[in-house]
């Protein structure tokens, strides 16, 4: 199964979850997601999603200087973002249980 297809559907929630722990900038958020096991996550998908979440009012942002070059844009989760994260987590749990149920019933049943 191509994990990148699965990741795409839950990327909004995953990014919000990463930012709920600590503010971060684009590249750093990608690294945190990969370190958490989402190795197939694409940089462009993450940056695009960050922009969309920010536009939707789920994140706030601020600039901070960087040693490597241009100033970095840090993202921080806000109340609307936390609410969305909570909904995403519930939605994911429901979905996971449903899929688990389907897989397990398939395994034990001769079709």
């Amino acid at each position, binding site marked *: 199964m191509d994990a990148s297809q699965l990741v795409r559907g839950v*990327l909004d929630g995953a990014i919000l979850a990463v930012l709920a722990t600590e503010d971060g*900038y*684009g*590249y750093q958020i*990608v690294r945190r997601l990969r370190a958490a096991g989402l190795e197939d996550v*694409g*940089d*462009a*998908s*993450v*940056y*695009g*999603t*960050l*922009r*969309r979440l920010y*536009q939707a009012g789920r994140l706030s942002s601020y600039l901070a200087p*960087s*040693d*490597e*070059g*241009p*100033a*970095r*844009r840090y993202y921080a989760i806000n109340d609307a973002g936390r609410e969305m994260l909570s909904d995403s987590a519930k939605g994911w749990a429901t979905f996971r249980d449903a899929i688990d149920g389907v897989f397990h019933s398939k395994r034990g049943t001769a079709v």
Partner: protein
Amino acid sequence: MTTAAPTTTSAAFLARVAAALEDLTPAEREDLLVDVRGTVAELVATGEPPEDRLGRPELFAAELRTAAGFPPAAAETGTGPERQSRWWRWWPLSGFLIGYAVCVPGVGDGVAGVLVPRINGHAWLAVLAIVVSTALATAVGMAATRWRYLLPVAVAGSVTLLAVAAAHISDAVRLVR
């Protein structure tokens, strides 16, 4: 501060991503590019070419805009940003041809008399007008690809004005002598 100078590769990568986002407004494009610029700077600092990590700039830009909620670029229909960004390349040629057409007299002795452009008999004035026309068309074409349909008129008008002004100056110089 240990700032790594961007390599040509990183500048080229960013330029190609920006070109693929050319149909967005400057504010939208800049908004998308801020995070990319930071990443490219960080990759350069670690010595990794951006393309190795981020892939082909056009594909990167396509994924970026889709994830951000923008419609995909219409590159495959021939009206997308990649094609639009190449439009300015025609402007030097059109500037040259318009300048030449305005200045060439079509009268004179032999082939050279007909083909060598002149303003009031001065080839150097005509050459100057053509050079200015070419440079102007290039600059205008690069700066404003969105209004490209109106630009031939602007360029032709500028060159005509320039040629008329040059003719008057030439007359004045002759009178003084």
